[in-house]
């Protein structure tokens, strides 16, 4: 067995040696420059041809390896086109994919849905026109008369207070619905399908800007403008809350002078300040006066309302006192403090609630799928710039090799003797 191995090892060594000599021989005698039509050339031609062959192979190898490296490492575009992609296909595509939308502008309502819930007070009996509460307040208002003394009494002012609240609720509601509808009807302009992150960033930015900035600041700005102009243009309220007639000269034809109403003792008057106000006073059954928590009255009910808080409507004890002093047949119930996020209740002014348009919660739904369906890309394409493209390398290699081969076969037989001559010349010169 061992013998056999030795023998076979020996055999292989011999074979290798034979093959080696064969290869060396083949290399030595390799002649790519032989003239097929001129067999058995003279010896010096044969030697020259063999030399050319070696130079030729060397140069070719250098050139070709250069070409291969160059082509292997150069970037080549590779464009893929997908027709009528579905969302599922789209999601698997690389982020550089380019999908032109059929519609340049897509209305927001096709993929955004905005809902909101309003403050409890806006849907409560406190502002409901047909509620028992409003009816009772109205009755109290009619019975209170127009005496100057009771300008801050609950019975005279509470109706105006809650009506102003109702105005704010309804206008805020209207503004919200209207502005949201306007936004939803406006269009997102995108010539190309946006990728998910960009889509979410952009839409979220637009919506949060709209909801927390544009709509509230517009509403408050308009409200302040209307309030400011109407109160500072000294418009006279028929309720006598800001101006009172003063008869100085009791003769026929004399002027009745309009005197500004004063609040807080006489520290504040409606001519020089719109913010004069004092606490609303409730006359109890016992005839005692009690402050109604959070409720203020002043030159104009809308102005004093905004400075008030909603403390009263959350305070059952207070409401009970009111029920009791007016003998309300159906006692009104306080609102649940857990139903609102505007806390603390006794410190949050109605102005700051209005600044959020009485909205408790926004719920925003954005659907990328609907956006995709509205965009309806007909085709998507992406281009990769790839290295190591075998097809490209082979085709360039073949082209180059073919040319180089022919050129070298012509150039080398000319160049080699020339170089040889030059070398010899310089050698002679040197010696």
């Amino acid at each position, binding site marked *: 067995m061992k013998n056999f191995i030795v023998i076979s090892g020996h055999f292989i060594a011999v074979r290798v040696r034979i093959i080696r000599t064969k290869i060396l021989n083949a290399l030595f005698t390799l002649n790519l420059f032989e003239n097929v039509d001129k067999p058995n050339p003279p010896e010096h031609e044969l030697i020259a041809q063999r030399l050319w062959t070696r130079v030729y192979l060397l140069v070719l190898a250098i050139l070709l390896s250069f070409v291969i490296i160059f082509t292997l490492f150069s970037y080549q575009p590779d464009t893929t086109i997908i027709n009528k992609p579905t969302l599922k296909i789209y999601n698997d595509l690389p982020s550089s994919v380019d999908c032109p939308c059929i519609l340049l502008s897509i209305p927001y309502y096709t993929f955004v849905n905005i809902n909101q819930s309003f403050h409890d007070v806006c849907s409560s009996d406190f502002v409901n026109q047909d509620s028992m509460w409003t009816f009772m307040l109205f009755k109290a208002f009619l019975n209170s008369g127009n005496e100057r003394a009771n300008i801050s009494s609950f019975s005279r002012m509470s*109706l105006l207070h809650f009506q102003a609240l109702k105005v704010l609720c309804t206008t805020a509601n209207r503004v919200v619905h209207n502005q949201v509808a306007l936004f939803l009807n406006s269009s997102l302009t995108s010539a190309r399908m946006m990728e998910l992150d960009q889509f979410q960033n952009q839409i979220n930015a637009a919506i949060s800007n709209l909801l927390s900035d544009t709509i509230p600041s517009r509403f408050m700005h308009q409200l302040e403008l209307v309030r400011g102009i109407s109160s500072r243009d000294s418009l006279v309220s028929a309720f006598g809350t800001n101006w009172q007639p003063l008869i100085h000269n009791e003769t026929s034809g004399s002027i009745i002078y309009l005197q500004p109403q004063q609040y807080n003792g006489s520290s504040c008057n409606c001519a020089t300040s719109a913010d004069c106000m004092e606490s609303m006073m409730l006359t109890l059954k016992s005839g005692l006066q009690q402050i109604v928590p959070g409720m203020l009255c002043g030159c104009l009910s809308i102005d004093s309302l905004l400075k008030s808080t909603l403390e009263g409507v959350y305070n059952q004890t207070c409401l009970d006192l009111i029920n009791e002093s007016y003998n309300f047949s159906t006692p009104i119930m306080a609102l649940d403090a857990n139903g609102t996020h505007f806390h603390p209740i006794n410190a949050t002014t109605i102005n700051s609630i209005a600044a959020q348009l009485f909205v408790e919660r926004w719920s925003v739904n954005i659907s990328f799928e609907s956006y995709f369906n509205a965009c309806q890309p007909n085709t998507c394409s992406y281009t990769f710039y790839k290295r190591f493209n075998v097809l490209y390398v082979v085709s360039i290699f073949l082209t180059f090799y073919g040319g180089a081969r022919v050129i070298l076969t012509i150039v080398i037989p000319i160049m080699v003797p020339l170089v040889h001559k030059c070398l010899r010349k310089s050698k002679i010169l040197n010696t």
Partner: protein
Amino acid sequence: MNYSEKMRLIRWLSQLNLFESNAIDDYSIKLQRRSTRVYIIVLLIALLLLSIYGLFRNETTYIEIQNPTINVYEQLQDRYTLECPCSDVSISFQQIVGLVPTYHEICFSDFVTQRWFEYLFDVSKIASYFPVDFRTSATYQFQLLAILCRLSIQAIEDGLRSFFDTEFITRQLLSKSVFSVQVQTDIDNFKLNAPNEFSYSLDFLRHFLISDALLPATETMSIFYLTQSINQSWFARVDFDGFVSSNYICNCYHSPMCNATAGFFGDQLFDKQQQYIYLGAVDGWVVACYPIDGLLLSTLKSFYNQTELNSIVKFFKNSSDNFTSLDPNKPTRFNPHNVTIQTIAKECFVETWVQHINYSSYFNNCAPKVCAYTVNQRFDIFYTVTTIFGIYSGLTMVLRLVIPMIISFLFRKKNEASNIPKNTTNRLRKFVDTLLQLNLFKSARYTTPHHVNQQRWYTRVYFILFSAIVIILTLYTAINVRVTQIDLAKPSLNIILDLQKRTDISSLQCPCSKLSSPLKNFVKLTPIYHEICSSDFITEAWIVLLTSLSVTDFNEFGAFGPVFRLLQTYCDLAHRTISNGLNLFNEVQFLSNDLLTPDLFESHMRSESLYFQITTPNEFSHLLVLMREIVRVSQFTTGTATNFALDITNKSGNLQGKFRAIDGIANDTGYYCSSIINSNCKRQSILRNLGSYLTFNTIPVTGFYSSKYSSDTLFFSDLRSLYVQSFISTVVIALAKQQSVPFTALSRPSNFSRNTRFESLTNNLFIEYWIELFNYTAYYESCQPLSCTYTIRERLGLVSIIATVIGLVGGLSAILRLLTPYCVDLVLAFYRRQVQPKASQVRESEGKN
């Protein structure tokens, strides 16, 4: 080069033989030399043509730069179109724009402080000044000024905040110039929009106050007089004031925009010529029916001069107080001498904008990880060389084979034509012979018949493989669709339109040289209004006709004058809203990086225009609703005194006046409706008509409902009656005191039905429809594309196919020539190994036999 060298070259050229062979007879050598010359000439010509083709063929090269810095980017940007995808696509304007307004100094002066307001008003005062006296309205006017300042600044700051919050979205890094243009456009839009809306709202409110003749407490518009009736009871009477300006006495009830220069007065107002006797005039300051209207017409002239200010101040109670005048040396763009406060308020009191666009911050935020550009090279050395090499090798291969054949055929023909009979079968046989004997693997060393035979087999296999591959290659290149990018310089509109229609090209992009241009350049919107706004019903004559003095009930049609005046105002407001909105809309910069196609352009314009049409009336209606509601809930007193009473009571010997709200209306069913809690209180309007026998009969006016405020009355009512000519005639007969001009009823067809309430007409700004004109040619002109690029998916042309195939053929044949002999040998060896044992078996069996 001397003579002998020249001769040598010529000799060398004439003896040049690339087709040397064993045949050394003169004739063969002559043939070979001829072949050589033809070969060289044809090769040179073909090579020249192909090189030119190769050199001018476009080829795109793609270059990528990792983590580019801003400097690298800017250098490259000058030369190439770079594509650098942002790692963060959205950047808030806050980070890239600094925009700080400075405001007019009045907003920070003594004149908007509470101390000044209180100084101007004497609480203890129990007498009135004349309406034209500065002291009558001053405190209100300055408080209003303070509100205008505050709200203007707030509007600007709110606008700025929301502008800063806006995300600037870019998928690709923008170059500095494009970025600047785009951001500047946004900034300009903002600067234009922010003040405009505010000043418009203000105008709107002022008109609203006037329309209902709401009474201000200042005694500039109206004065209450104490009056005693015949039966000794006291009551209050309201009279309207007026002003004298340029010899014209006007009354606030009829012309609410009355005004005069303010001043200080003693006991006497007029001289004998009915001219004001000023104790001192406040130069540039104006008083009007409403404090706000006077304020807006005023200039700040007097408040820039300390001595003038002191002389004003001394007319008030305790002149010890110190107020500092405005600084006349402070630079302002509003000339204090002739610029009214209205003009300043229109600009939201903004003096200057300090602006700063931060490109490097944008660059850092975008943070491109990689920038890439394609170079559209004509002279790509590498590519050209390989192409020429390839083509050269292919050509030599083909020509070397073909040319000797042709030459020998041409010359042999002469000599041998007579010997062999012309015969198709002969020729065919000869051709087949040539084919069979063809040897491309001739070797100088292996010339034995066995070798020659082997070489012939190599040749055949080589030919079969070669032609198979060439055919496949040709088919492949012919069928293969290639995406080529094509540049087109200075494209005309027609060329672009043609390109857009073609379906075989894609990604047509024509970058605009002007990125943004205002919409007015290519969009024209024209509103068509409802005929009511051009009808007889908003003329003075009609309003005067309906201002009947003998009215006893608030719901009489004879008292509808103010309602139609309000309608007139709303028509005017609607026009102004629209023209205001259109001005803004026209100035909106439309941005497009690339020229849009007509379809896209039109759909884009349509949505822009539709959005404008929806939003414009909307802005108007919000303010209207808010104002109406606040007026209702505050029950402001009206000039017509329909919603209040001033009760005079005798309280312990002294007369006392008290306001009483008359909020209720007994509506048609007799049910009491209070407008404090109900915003829909109304009653059917009636026309009191003088019937026969001097009795009055009342007829209901279809579609008209009355309420306490003219604005409510108008909004509850509809158009029905105004379409009935006979009704109009009845009105004229009932109310006209003398011969009146004829009034024509409405008649034109309309998109609004006849029972459309004025409310919805107003909310729609009386617009029937819009005429939209979109001009694509104008859009093209403002975009000014300098070039278009598109990619075309096409099959290669014949020349390209040939060039490609020939290019590959050379290398292919070389490789095949190298490989074929080995392949054939290998196959043969394998075949032999399979066959030999059998052959030896056969031989053995033969031996046995």
